[in-house]
């Protein structure tokens, strides 16, 4: 226990003094600070713009009277295809954009758009044909779809009017204002999606990154030949467990700092984020979810860290680590892939998910996603955790055996058949060790 404490202290110290760890943490905190303060930063740099709510257009004359300008979209109603009422409907449906009805012909308007006289132009050339002229089609420009909706309404209106239906009746038919109320008895996946996604990402990154750190750290001790000094003074279990627990704790501390700073910056900028449902859904995640993250991080991390540690003890050089841990890394990637596919398709309770939530290698992420996005029964959660716990303990014992023999084997990484031999001799030698210490 004393040796374990020494190893643990030394390793933890190593993380807190290591530049990559500090830089990574600070960088993420700064990024979160900037992102979460973004509305306030943006407000600071942009001029105070008082956006006056546009009064709805009621008369077609208002459209003709609009001054031309950079923010204005010209409308050419060629040979009066749309009625005045339909034009008013169109103008009101193009929310936020100012329309100016103009008598200029299409070519003249196109020139104006090119020279910047208009922000864009809508040429109504037939009852069902509209051309939208724009200097650039931005990625976020939704004018085309808005125009489609607005034109459809306008054309329908004219068609209904032609059938002799009054304006009020036509409006009532076109905008019936149906209301849909939701009475959700389970978890709302729209509310849970974002935080589940973020936590899964964190879980995945933490397990992969810290697992690899464990493998590299063991391989470094071996590659730098520090191992013989360590192994002759310290129990292998103290070395392995001290190292892994220190890595796990430093990972947890890093996550705590990062998520803690996110919460802090969110609350500092709370007023700026008011009304943003996505952000609110992330920061209003239920507390038990955080508890589950902790449980599944700890179990998942240990399961994988044991495997990574054992593999690290089998390679001779640090350069060989990334190639050797690939099979294990792929296992995590597969789990991540399953879970992300399932939650993005909104199917957290698919057969695949249910099966994977009991397989210990995928359980940390999959069971967590099921808990966050649906409502598995308590015995399902317990069964998954118990299986995971038992497997982690088993892998831990196995890894300690491999580690004991692996750390002093140099040369090529062993083949699987040789590995089994190693584990057997490790068991045998383990008995001898117990006798001698």
């Amino acid at each position, binding site marked *: 226990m004393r*040796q374990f404490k*020494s*190893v643990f202290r*030394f390793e933890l*110290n*190593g993380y807190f003094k*290591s530049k990559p760890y500090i830089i990574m943490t600070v960088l993420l905190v700064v990024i979160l600070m900037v992102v979460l303060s973004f509305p306030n930063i943006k407000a600071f740099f942009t001029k105070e713009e008082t956006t006056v709510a546009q009064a709805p257009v009621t008369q077609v004359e208002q459209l003709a009277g609009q001054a031309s300008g950079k923010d204005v979209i010209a409308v050419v109603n060629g040979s009066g295809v749309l009625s005045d009422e339909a034009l008013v409907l169109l103008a009101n449906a193009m929310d936020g954009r100012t329309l100016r009805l103009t008598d200029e012909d299409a070519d003249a308007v196109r020139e104006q758009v090119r020279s910047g006289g208009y922000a864009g132009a809508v040429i109504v050339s037939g009852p069902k044909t509209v051309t939208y002229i724009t200097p650039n089609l931005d990625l976020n420009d939704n004018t085309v779809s808005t125009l489609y909706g607005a034109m459809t309404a306008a054309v329908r209106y004219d068609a209904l009017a032609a059938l002799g239906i009054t304006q009020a009746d036509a409006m009532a038919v076109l905008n019936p204002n149906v209301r849909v109320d939701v009475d959700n008895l389970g978890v709302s996946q729209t509310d849970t999606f974002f935080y589940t996604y973020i936590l899964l990402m964190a879980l995945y990154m933490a397990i992969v990154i810290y697992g690899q750190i464990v493998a590299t750290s063991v391989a*470094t*001790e071996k590659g*730098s*030949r*520090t*191992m*013989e*000094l*360590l*192994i*002759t*003074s*310290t129990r292998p279990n103290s070395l392995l467990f001290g190292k892994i627990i220190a890595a796990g704790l430093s990972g947890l501390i890093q996550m705590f700092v990062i998520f803690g700073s996110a919460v802090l910056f969110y609350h500092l900028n709370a007023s700026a984020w008011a009304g943003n449902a996505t952000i609110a859904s992330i920061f209003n995640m239920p507390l038990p979810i955080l508890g589950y993250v902790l449980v599944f991080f700890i179990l998942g991390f240990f399961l994988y860290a044991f495997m990574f540690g054992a593999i690290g003890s089998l390679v001779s050089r640090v350069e060989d680590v990334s190639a050797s841990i690939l099979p294990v890394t792929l296992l995590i990637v597969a789990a991540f892939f399953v879970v992300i596919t399932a939650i993005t398709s909104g199917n957290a309770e698919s057969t695949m998910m249910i099966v994977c939530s009991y397989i210990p290698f995928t359980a940390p992420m999959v069971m967590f996603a099921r808990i966050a996005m649906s409502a598995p029964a308590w015995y399902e959660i317990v069964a998954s955790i118990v299986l995971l716990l038992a497997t982690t303990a088993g892998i831990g014992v196995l890894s300690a055996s491999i580690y004991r023999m692996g750390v*002093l084997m140099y040369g090529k990484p062993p083949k699987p058949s040789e590995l089994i031999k190693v584990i057997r001799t490790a068991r045998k*030698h383990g008995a*001898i*060790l117990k006798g*001698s*210490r």
Partner: protein
Amino acid sequence: MRLEVKQLYKNFGDKEVLKGVDFAVESGNSLGLLGRNGAGKTTTIRIIMDVFAADSGDVLLDGKPFRQGDFRIGYMPEERGLYPKRLILDQLVYLANLRGLSLADAKANTLRWLGRMGLMDYLNKKVDSLSKGNQQKIQLAVAMLNDPEILILDEPFSGLDPVNAKLLKLIVRETIEEGKIVLFSSHQMNYVEEFCKDIAILNQGKILLNTDIDKHKRSYDRRHLVLDIGGGANKDAVAYLTGKGIRAEDVKQEVHLYVPDVKDTLGILSGLSESGVPIEGYRVFEPSLEDVFVEYTSETI
């Protein structure tokens, strides 16, 4: 205390590395384990340190199975190495701490030994910023950190310049004088000869010679003499001696002669002197450790 290995056998796969190794070393003494490359020196030392177990045989301390955890052991493995990216102070304190010292003692001893090695300026440096010689000195400091009762050094002289080798010899000699057990392996005979009372020559997994080095040298024929002749008169000396029926040779500017009986030595020498050959010095021939080593190991080349 008496550290003893008895009938160690060890195979790696089909390769027999140790075939019944025996030797012992007592407090206040040092044993030099000599052998050519691949003789089994490091394997023997690793078995003593319980890096791995022997296939059969015992490592005993005062007749009881040797339990590493019960003693303060200083160990310098053949494979040298420390954490390349950690501060020297940090890792030395850590290693001393792992060998049973409290943090405060570990730090005090680290400072003391680094001071002794003249490496105080490097306390807060990383190992990979040190020269190779200084890294070797750090390794020695690591072995000494816990004031070992048993000091085991595997090839301690490799990579040391003469000044650092002298420092190492001084430290080892002090350790012996303090009544500790020192066991080390080497193939650098000149160093071993200087402070080692006992040697064990290991060849192909077997101990060929385990003896007190001075006694062993004296066991060579005392009738074999070496003369230092002045004035380039070696040939005259050889001619005079051969004339008297004594076997004599001129080897490397010295005259080797084999007197029939030790009692005749002075008579022969005074006769030679009177014949006008200037004798500047004479001694009984004793082989160097290197000669002994080559004698015992060369036939198996």
